[in-house]
């Protein structure tokens, strides 16, 4: 199995805030193009890559969606030498003070390195000075004078996390935006695995946009591609400090297969059978309501699609130090490839409700 780590690291360093995914889209397109039959962009920017199957047309299609957008910040105001920012996606303001960032300065076209800062207590409202400092009161400092800042930056400019990815002991990687670039790596592993496999079905690998905010990419690509089956690969909660209940799964013990209203039980069963046959370890994830993934959107595209969610356990979600096990990425990639290759031409007719 090819080493996915260098590609994953390059993905983590590429900006791609929700609705501004272009830099990371380019990287993914470059990596996927030699692995697929064709690539295209959806009307709102999702990367759709088709690896054509072997059965005669009209061929059934499997769509695998991994969102490529990242959470981050956006400039709301300039105050002298400082910037006020708001969040894009769900961010706990408590992780922000002294986080390194890059401001994508649209006036000058530069990427300005800087830091999110907590003003000194006496500059803060007395009621909160000693407590949690909300995003409204945090600032961004890029070390420029007020005049230089105003020449370069304007309201609406994006701000990305800039913590560098780092490999930690035990074949894990830590960094920002592993949610969900880890799953983009999963899908890349799957495409690589499929190079040496026959598959009857078309396989659409889709790097979706705007998952963190609207699920817009998944709604629209599922509608456009109209697959017979759709799988979302996304990160799920790993056990770790502050996370130990039923919603959490140990790192490096395999991807999760989710169960709940967003997942078709038959697809779940089929994936589990294949994983067991190949001795790929998986964990069972309960998802009693909204799965919090692209599957929530894909399931109700057009006349409705049987969907499934594969989860990659990840520690410290939505912080700049998210952590996943490389093994889980490889396992999930292999499972998806094996599942795609196992789909018989008439598989759709076999999907049943075992009531």
């Amino acid at each position, binding site marked *: 199995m090819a080493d996915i780590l260098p590609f994953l690291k390059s993905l983590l360093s590429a900006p791609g805030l929700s609705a501004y995914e272009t830099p990371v889209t380019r990287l993914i397109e470059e990596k996927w193009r030699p692995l697929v039959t064709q690539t295209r962009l959806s009307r709102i920017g999702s990367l759709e890559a088709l690896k054509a199957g072997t059965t005669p047309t009209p061929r059934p299609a499997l769509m695998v969606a991994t969102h490529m957008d990242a959470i981050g910040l956006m400039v709301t105001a300039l105050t002298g030498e400082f910037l006020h920012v708001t969040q894009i996606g769900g961010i706990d303001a408590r*992780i922000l003070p002294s986080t390194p960032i890059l401001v994508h300065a649209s006036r000058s076209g530069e990427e300005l390195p800087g*830091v999110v*800062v907590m003003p000194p207590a006496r500059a803060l409202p007395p009621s909160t000075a000693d407590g949690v400092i909300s995003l409204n009161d945090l600032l961004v400092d890029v070390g420029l004078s007020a005049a230089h800042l105003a020449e370069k930056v304007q309201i609406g400019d994006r701000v990305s996390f800039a913590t560098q990815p780092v490999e*930690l002991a035990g074949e894990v990687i830590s960094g920002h935006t592993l949610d969900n670039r880890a799953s983009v790596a999963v899908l890349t592993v799957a495409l690589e695995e499929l190079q040496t496999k026959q598959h009857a079905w078309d396989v659409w690998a889709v790097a979706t946009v705007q998952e963190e905010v609207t699920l817009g990419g998944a709604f629209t690509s599922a509608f456009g591609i109209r697959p017979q089956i759709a799988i979302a690969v996304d990160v799920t909660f790993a056990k770790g400090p502050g996370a130990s209940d039923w919603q959490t799964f140990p790192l490096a013990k395999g991807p999760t297969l989710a169960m709940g209203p967003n997942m078709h039980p038959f697809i779940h069963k089929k994936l589990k059978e294949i994983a067991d046959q190949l001795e790929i370890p998986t964990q069972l994830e309960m998802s009693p309501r909204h799965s919090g993934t692209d599957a929530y959107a894909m399931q109700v595209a057009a006349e409705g699609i049987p969907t499934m969610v594969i989860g990659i356990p990840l520690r410290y979600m939505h912080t700049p130090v998210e952590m996943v096990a490389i093994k889980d990425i490889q396992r999930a990639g292999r499972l998806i490839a094996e599942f795609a290759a196992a789909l018989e031409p008439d598989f759709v007719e076999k999907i049943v409700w075992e009531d």
Partner: protein
Amino acid sequence: MPTITEKQIELLEKLCNASAVSGDEGEVRKIVLEEVKPYADTVKIDALGNVLVTKNGAAEKRLRVMLDCHMDEVGFMLVADEGEGLFHFELVGGIDPRQLPGKQVLVGKDKIPGVIGARPIHLTTPEERSHKISVDALRIDVGPGGAGKVKVGDRATFATRFRRVGDSIFSKAIDNRIGCVLLIDLLKTAPANLDLCLSFSVQEEIGLRGAKVAAYHFNPDLAFAIDSTPANDLPVHDGEENTFYNTKLGAGPAIYTFDSGTLSDPRLIRFLAQTGDEEKIPYQYRQPGGGGTDGGAIHRVRAGVPTVSVSVPHRYTHTAISLALVADWENTLALLSAALQRLTPDLLAEPR
């Protein structure tokens, strides 16, 4: 007028990237020793780990002048192993726990990477998010394969690497590696009118411990504590003027009048200001208030040592990323360098 060259910036980078949590200053001590040996008359490491350096002048009547900077930085110590690479840790020095979640650290002499995570926002309630995260709830995580690579007792620092962008320097531990480079430069250009005693001190951040014994050892006529101090010059939430900025970034070296540990010697305050005025070197007075330097220990040693502190202003001290300006550093070097050259025993004969 002395300037800051690429060579000094490289030395600051090396020193800032080194790990030297209070009580474990070895890595910085080693760099300092290499730098000072070619220029010193004597070099000694004392019982606490201070690096004590002398450089004697040649004039007939010479003041014995102590220059102090601290080598240590705030950081962490691993205190309990919870298995699978997770460690309970304690703070060493004044770190606001609100600065910790989501940061990378380096553990031990081998600088094993680790992270301080936080519970995912998805698993928290709005009520929970309205409370600070205590140190007790945080762990240093070096990865599930970390057993044996780090151990209880190891120190950890923020992992931030030094970065210079134009005139700005972003780094951890600017407090007080910038003071260390200043002392090294002042040693290299030591004027003949003085006997210089330099202390690269340990354990400033946990109670000015090193400087106390260093000052006793040197028994100087007067002392300068050279440090770095917060520039709290940020906008105020309600738009009012910030009148409690401590110092301002870009306004030059900060001369201390009064902090929580020291009332600076008035003769030395006047002397520094006069030097700045006459040499046309920008300087600022640090606003009287809390905080402190090794001066707090030095001025009370033996029968007393006339002492003043001078600091390089920098923002966001004791966090993962501080910000300083090369211009402030250069002006601090210029002011101190000029002051040493102008120092004569007459100064101490002046009325206070």
